[in-house]
């Protein structure tokens, strides 16, 4: 059973990569650590998104709706009531799950392109609400939270890495489990999955809520790392697209690929910083080429070769 779960070379490669990542604070600058910390959080967002796209076969254009709710709820609770950080984080996660349920219940009835459109609209509504209730949310200027988890770059880095590794392990196991198999069947052919006795809507809904849990938790943790939250860094549709591109770049249906894609994307943007305005363009073109010519992504190509 374990052998089936962990294709040996891939497992050892991943373990080695995590070990190297864990030792990075020993010789890497604080600036790079900060960059990777954010990349790891976005890795979790991408992995959560892959559960929906790769397995449930639903394109969610609103990953930022979920993570934004987690981040803003946690931040506002901290701002207003000064509750302990872990309670703020728990409340943020809860808010993402509840909002996810409210959104997904009606949206999954229409699955397919209409589901996707619903999720885009959810992001736009959240964006508007944040601007309308500016006195609570900080509006366009952004929200500043008084507390942070830690001011030590290495601590924050390890927390983000640990969060990503644990989330990744859970999501990966889930995707390879019996439940993951039913989810894939529901995504690939809902008529046949129904005829086999599976409640397709239930499975997709739970997948969405799991996605909401990790996105909301990640968003809440992120806000206490950055100390701020703003529409342009967390909510904007462009941020969502970045999460999606990372997952596709890394490789659909691989979960781990999504995290790799996220780190790669943020790393590439940083490496191209000297090119100035061109950086975004080059990253976008790279993403476009990968999607067009390697739709299985970087990790998908490796996994396929191993299988063959």
């Amino acid at each position, binding site marked *: 059973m374990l052998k089936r779960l962990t294709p040996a070379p891939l497992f050892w490669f991943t373990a080695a990569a995590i070990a190297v990542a864990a030792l990075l604070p020993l010789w890497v600058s604080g600036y790079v650590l900060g960059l990777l910390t954010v990349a790891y959080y976005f890795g979790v967002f991408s992995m959560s998104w892959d559960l929906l796209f790769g397995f449930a076969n639903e394109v969610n254009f609103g990953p930022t709706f979920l993570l934004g709710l987690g981040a803003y709820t946690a931040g506002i609770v901290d701002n207003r009531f000064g509750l302990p950080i872990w309670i703020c984080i728990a409340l943020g996660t809860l808010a993402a799950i509840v909002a996810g349920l409210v959104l997904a219940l009606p949206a999954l009835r229409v699955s397919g392109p209409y589901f996707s459109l619903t999720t885009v609209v959810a992001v736009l509504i959240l964006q508007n609400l944040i601007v309308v209730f500016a006195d609570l949310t900080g509006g366009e200027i952004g929200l500043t939270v008084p507390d942070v988890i830690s001011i030590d770059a290495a601590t924050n880095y390890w927390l983000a890495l640990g969060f990503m590794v644990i989330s990744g392990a859970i999501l990966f196991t889930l995707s390879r*489990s019996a439940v993951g198999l039913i989810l894939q069947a529901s995504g690939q052919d809902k008529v046949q999955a129904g005829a086999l006795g599976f409640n397709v809507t239930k499975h997709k809904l739970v997948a969405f809520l799991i996605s909401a849990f990790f996105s909301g938790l990640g968003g809440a943790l992120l806000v206490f790392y950055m100390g701020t939250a703003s529409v342009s860094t967390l909510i904007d549709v462009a941020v969502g697209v970045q999460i999606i591109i990372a997952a596709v770049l890394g490789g659909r249906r691989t979960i781990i690929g999504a995290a790799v894609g996220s780190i790669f994307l943020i790393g590439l943007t940083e490496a191209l910083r000297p090119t100035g305005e061109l950086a975004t363009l080059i990253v976008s073109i790279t993403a476009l080429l990968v999607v067009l010519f390697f739709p299985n992504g970087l990790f998908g190509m490796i996994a396929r070769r191993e299988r063959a």
Partner: protein
Amino acid sequence: MRAETMPRERAETTVQGQAAARPCLSVEGLTKRFGGLVAVNRLDMTLHRGEILGLIGPNGSGKSTVMKLIMGLERPTSGAIKLDGEDIAGLPSHKIARKGVGLVFQHSRPLRRQTVFENIKLALLPDSLLKLFADPEVDERAKAIAERVGLAKVLDRRPATLPFADLRKLELAKAIARNPRVVLVDEPFAGLTQSEMAAFADLIGTFRAEGRAVLLVDHNVKSVAALADRVIALYLGERVAEGTAAEVMRNETVRRVYLGGEIRTYARAEASFQSAEPLLQVKDVSVFYAKAQALERVSLHVHEGEFVSVIGINGAGKTTLFNAISGFVPFSGEIAWAGAPLRGKSAAAIARGGIVQCPETRELFADMTVREHLNLGGHRLTRAESDERRSWLFDLFPILKERQKQNAATLSGGEQQMLTIARALMTKPRLLILDEPTLGLAPVILEQISNALEHLRRTTSITMLLGEQNVTFALPHADRIYVLEHARIIWEGPPARFAEEMGTGYL
């Protein structure tokens, strides 16, 4: 404990205890309307344990709809579907499946990235979110099922690498895995060779031996005759005959539906066209869809001005043949049009060259008016030509003139078919391909379309290739007939000889 894990011995004793007393499945006054179309009309039907019932009917007769209604893939408009006395009509399909109804899909749709083993295992899993890992006995049961259907050797292969017959067995394995009381099998033998059919029939026979109730849904009596204990024939949503296969085959109504009562033919001898080389020459054409061979070395020819009918039941390969000619599917072999090969030409170029197809699905634009459809068909004609052509078509199909401003979606089925033909004729084709124009149409409409085709034959030089399963409709409009069965041409000749040589064997 779930019903699926009930040991087989117990299942069998229960069955014998209640044998034949009460029907396992009973359908009462089942009706399904799609808008104005009545697909199934007040149907009554029973199915007992250990019985194989054949539900047959031509395309559009409502048999597939009945199957979907039982499985819960469509909601009935009214009526009851009782499974051991419990009404399951209108429940979602996953609930019906859990109550003990299984469906063997005609088209295999396995999980592509999983192995055969995992595909069977999927069907054995409970609908639970908490069971992350399947019980260990699930693996054993999946292997046992694979053994039973003959997939034991290919357990670790992916579906894409399997031959077509194995994919069908996989569908059967998935149905067995749910241990259903009622098994619905959609077109059990479509696309299988003779020996594969025998193996498949044996497997379905074991369902009966286990006391399951089996419903075979198929086009004609012949294919289910050997297996079915009883046959019900449907036509236009109503039951027209019931009995043993032999009785149904002898039934007058059934014969009329499939063969037509009195067949009139007006064939012109082929010799009268043989002045030149054929306009369309199809030679040794084969087409594969993934694993399934849809056409096998098919050859036929059509002369300029000739009306040729290709007769075959659904799934025989008619549409594939027409799509190969129209350039929609890749093929091996040769197709020549007016002496020049068609290979490598785009579908658009072939259409501009004068071959126009009226597909069986009609492909009308729901929100465009009749007039707009005709204008679209005539977009390459000059204003004057277009006007003249249109008024000629309005003479041919007067009803379309009245309907000019209506959207296609609001037309009746017959009017839609007329519009499809009219739109094709607007392009001034040299060869008109009609794919099952009679699909789901009432006899009175058939007569109108029939008259229009006869008018075309007498007054124009147009060439026509007609694909039909309705022999009554096909024969009068044919100078020559080809019969397509299981992807091959099995007969060719004039319509007069068809009735003698093929007529009875065609039910």
